[in-house]
């Protein structure tokens, strides 16, 4: 078959990804070709700056491309505009921040390779967040995941890093298999790999009694994607990976990869909900077929699965975090809990943009905050050699600015106003109740709010050591100036977006 204009279109739509890949190759060439003899500091700085320039070019390309998306034979492969563009901008911005953190955290001699892998993973993230076709989704996810496995293992001299990468890889391979298995069922049911066509087909299939197979497919897909967002019970990799991976890589995994995965979940939920707009077809089916089916389309089973994952993640994440003594593991369990809140927003998803906007707001601000948190943990860990709670003792004396940043970020994660974390939760819960004010939605929101009260306890455990308990060692902790500047900028953003929540909301709603 010949589709004139497809390749020019492809190039036009994937210009940001192309920019990232070019930058990735450029980093390798320059670092390995020209800077062999340069000092490590210089190489790290040059590599990171090229990476940042690549992200900048991609951001620019993102603004310039038309918002029509890429279609093949009438089916949309890559979407553009709307929530996709917000997520992609977020991915690029957060990638820039993690690259900046890398400058101050030279844990490896392989600066060029590190930045190159980060850029390729980010390109995978861009594809994931715009993909509307099962094959494209899978390719994007693999590009992203392979990058993450390598990044986790990047601290080559650390046994923990290798162990974490191995666990992550094994779990990841397994979940990718589940995901593919689920996709194959969907393809079998619908005969198409396009999300919208699948959902249309599933609509007829459920109406004619093919529902159990749909359930199986959806459960398998939820298992695959639940792994990506670290939802209980597919979360077991998260604590080990967060603990073992080098800090900038952990920050990347906790932020960029989460943004991409949740953007994908938004795509699926949007498509699933969307079908209910086709009221005419609903009537058509109801009149032409026999006994009424229990449900139509994918929405009800999908929502049910997400609800279960959400409740389990909120409860397990928050309760397990209470018992942690390693701050990185604590952040991992808190990430699981936050994923639970977001899944709640996906399970009660609205036709309008309200839910998608609330979820994007949450995941972008969460990504920003968690990058900052990993930045602080990294500085402390370099100075004390440990990420235990006790490593934070007396931080307010050892580095008052760093302690202040920690205070702002952790209180934001706990959802204390007027920091941005509060508005994220608030928007999300309001969106959930806006979709359904029934007892189930209400009970789940009540559970989420109650558990975020619980979460204050473990965040305060860290802050208590930083501010309250007496210091064992009072030698000052020095942070790299770039790291410090990034952390201060993040803390300032958390405060400013918190005091003026409309800034970010309007920006997201503007796409």
């Amino acid at each position, binding site marked *: 078959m010949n589709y004139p204009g497809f390749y020019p279109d492809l190039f036009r739509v994937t210009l940001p990804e192309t920019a990232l890949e070019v930058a990735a190759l450029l980093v390798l060439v320059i670092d390995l070709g020209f800077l062999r003899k340069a000092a490590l500091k210089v190489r790290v700085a040059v590599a990171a700056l090229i990476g940042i320039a690549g992200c900048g070019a991609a951001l620019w390309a993102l603004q310039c491309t038309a918002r029509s998306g890429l279609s093949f034979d009438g089916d949309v492969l890559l979407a553009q505009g709307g929530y996709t563009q917000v997520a992609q901008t977020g991915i690029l911005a957060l990638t820039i921040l993690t690259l900046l953190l890398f400058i101050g955290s030279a844990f490896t001699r392989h600066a060029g390779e590190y930045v190159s892998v980060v850029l390729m993973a980010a390109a995978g993230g861009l594809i994931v967040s715009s993909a509307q076709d099962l094959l494209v989704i899978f390719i994007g996810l693999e590009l992203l995941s392979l990058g993450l496995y390598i990044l986790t293992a990047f601290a080559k001299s650390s046994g923990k890093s290798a162990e974490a990468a191995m666990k992550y890889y094994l779990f990841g391979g397994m979940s990718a298999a589940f995901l593919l298995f689920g996709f194959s069922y969907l393809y079998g049911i619908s005969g198409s790999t396009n999300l919208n066509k699948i959902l249309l087909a599933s609509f007829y299939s459920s109406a004619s009694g093919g529902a159990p197979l749909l359930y199986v497919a959806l459960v398998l897909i939820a298992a695959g994607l639940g792994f990506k967002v670290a939802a209980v019970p597919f979360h077991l990799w998260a604590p080990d990976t967060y603990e073992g991976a080098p800090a900038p890589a952990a920050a990347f995994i906790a932020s960029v990869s989460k943004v991409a995965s949740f953007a994908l979940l938004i795509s699926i939920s949007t498509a699933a909900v969307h079908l209910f707009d086709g009221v005419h077809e609903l009537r058509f089916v109801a009149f032409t077929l026999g006994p009424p089916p229990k449900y139509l389309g994918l929405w009800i089973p999908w929502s049910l699965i997400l609800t279960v994952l959400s409740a389990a993640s909120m409860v397990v994440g928050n309760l397990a975090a209470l018992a942690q003594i390693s701050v990185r593991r604590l952040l991992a369990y808190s990430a699981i809990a936050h994923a639970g809140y977001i899944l709640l927003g996906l399970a009660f998803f609205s036709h309008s943009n309200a839910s998608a906007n609330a979820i994007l707001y949450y995941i972008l601000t969460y990504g920003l905050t968690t990058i900052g948190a990993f930045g602080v943990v990294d500085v402390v860990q370099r100075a004390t050699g440990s990420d235990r709670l006790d490593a934070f003792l007396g931080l307010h004396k050892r580095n008052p600015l760093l302690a202040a940043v920690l205070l702002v970020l952790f209180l934001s994660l706990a959802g204390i106003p007027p920091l941005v974390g509060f508005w994220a939760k608030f928007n999300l*819960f309001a969106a959930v109740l806006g979709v359904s004010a029934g007892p189930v939605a209400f009970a789940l929101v009540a559970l989420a709010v109650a558990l975020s009260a619980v979460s*204050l306890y473990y965040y305060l455990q860290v802050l208590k050591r930083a*501010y309250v308990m007496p210091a064992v060692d009072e030698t000052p902790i020095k942070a790299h100036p770039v790291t410090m500047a990034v952390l201060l900028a993040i803390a300032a953003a958390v405060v400013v977006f918190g005091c003026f929540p409309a800034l970010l909301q309007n920006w997201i709603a503007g796409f």
Partner: protein
Amino acid sequence: MLAWTIYLSFAGALLQALLPKGRNDLARWLALAFAVAGLALAVAGFVAGMGQGRVIIIDAPWVPTMGIHYLLAADGISRVLVLLTGLAAVAGVLFSWNIELRTNEFFAFFLALIGGVYGVFLSFDLFLLFVFYEIAIVPKYFLIAIWGSTRREYAAMKLALYSFAGSAMVLIGLLAAYATSGSHSTSLIDLAAYAHSGGLPVSFQMWCFPLVFTGFAILAGMWPFHTWAPTGHVAAPTAASMLLAGVVMKLGAYGCLRVGIWLFPHGLDSWGFTLLGFIGSWRDVFALLAVIGIVYGALVALAQTDFKFVIGYSSVSHMGFVLLGLMTLNQIGVTGAVMQMFSHGIIAGLLFAIVGRIVYERTHTRQLDELETMHLAKRLPFAAWAFVVAGMASMGLPGFSGFVAELQVLVGAWTAKPWWTFAAGVGIVVGVAYTWRALQKAFFSDRLPTADEHPKTGWHNLGAITWPEYAGVALLTGVSLFVGLYPRILLDTIEPAVKALLAGGGQ
């Protein structure tokens, strides 16, 4: 003008945080300057607001997509409580003049807390109020955990978790109300008008009201959720316990009134059936809890061996009067409740200052048994007489602010249900007893130490009373006496606001 109390306090907090270490005197004077400026604004706002109804200070869209406004306004109740906050802030700074550990950080948290409190009293938007309410929680934790005494980390965490649990309940209730009303405004004025015109279903109000009310009442020290209060008060440094008892517990009571009662007018309606023969509505339930709090707090205070615990439990008892006053739902009872908020804020601040700062910082013990052997009336006559005055005010003797407040609550309660008055009356009698007992043991006992008691703890030089202490005691006793002798000055401001609030809002 009143809005600047908020901004000034936060600016002061920021300035203190940025102050270089070791400039303790500068930090103190700066804190005093900011607190006095806040008080001056509060007084000016109070005087300017006399005879006026609700005045909108600023109304700007804040989160337009959700209809949230940055809406600050003041009615009579707000103005009185803002005045109380200003007084408590100045007194608090005066009584923490001797803080040497991380002085600038102490005042940074202190002023941040004060800023949050001003914000709550002036917010007329549902979620703005909630934001300020939560801002006040975190500084409390650090004030107690860093500068506190007895089991401070435990007490601070307990207080923070109780507060946060309470605010979680409030948030759930507010979200539900927001979703149910389906309105595009979260202004309390609009929502109250909506609720009073029958917008919110009665059945919804019936379950949402107790949620919100209990959430706020936790911070007001309602029995049986009061246990954070005595431990928190005892562990806190003097200024923090003054603020806790003085204004933070008022935040809870204010929330109960401003959000709970105003927004859910039918939440207190009769259920249509009775439990145990006398509980037929949420109003009966909360009134019962308030009365239990009054009597229980007083009885427990009577049995304490630690001087500060006596005051801590007396706060629970006195806050019971506030809640009881709210539950009368009549003009005089609710006015009395607001009056009691003001009066208890002043008197509890004074009591905590005497016990925590003037006595404890010199004797290094708060055990009544040990204080007995120290003959403080002779050695610290100023403290003794200050406590006599504060104790009389606390017992509710005529001439002090407490008398006017409690009398009105009791009259209101009599109008509503006479048995409430009898039960609360028991609390007043026991109140006389525990105050008398503490006074006698701590100051006027002439028991000599027995052989196995170590007299050395008591007989070191006690140190002279410093000027900030004189100034603080004079300020607080002066205000209590002035309001007691001339209650009209507050009542004229409170009464119209309460009337409007009970009628549904529009002024």
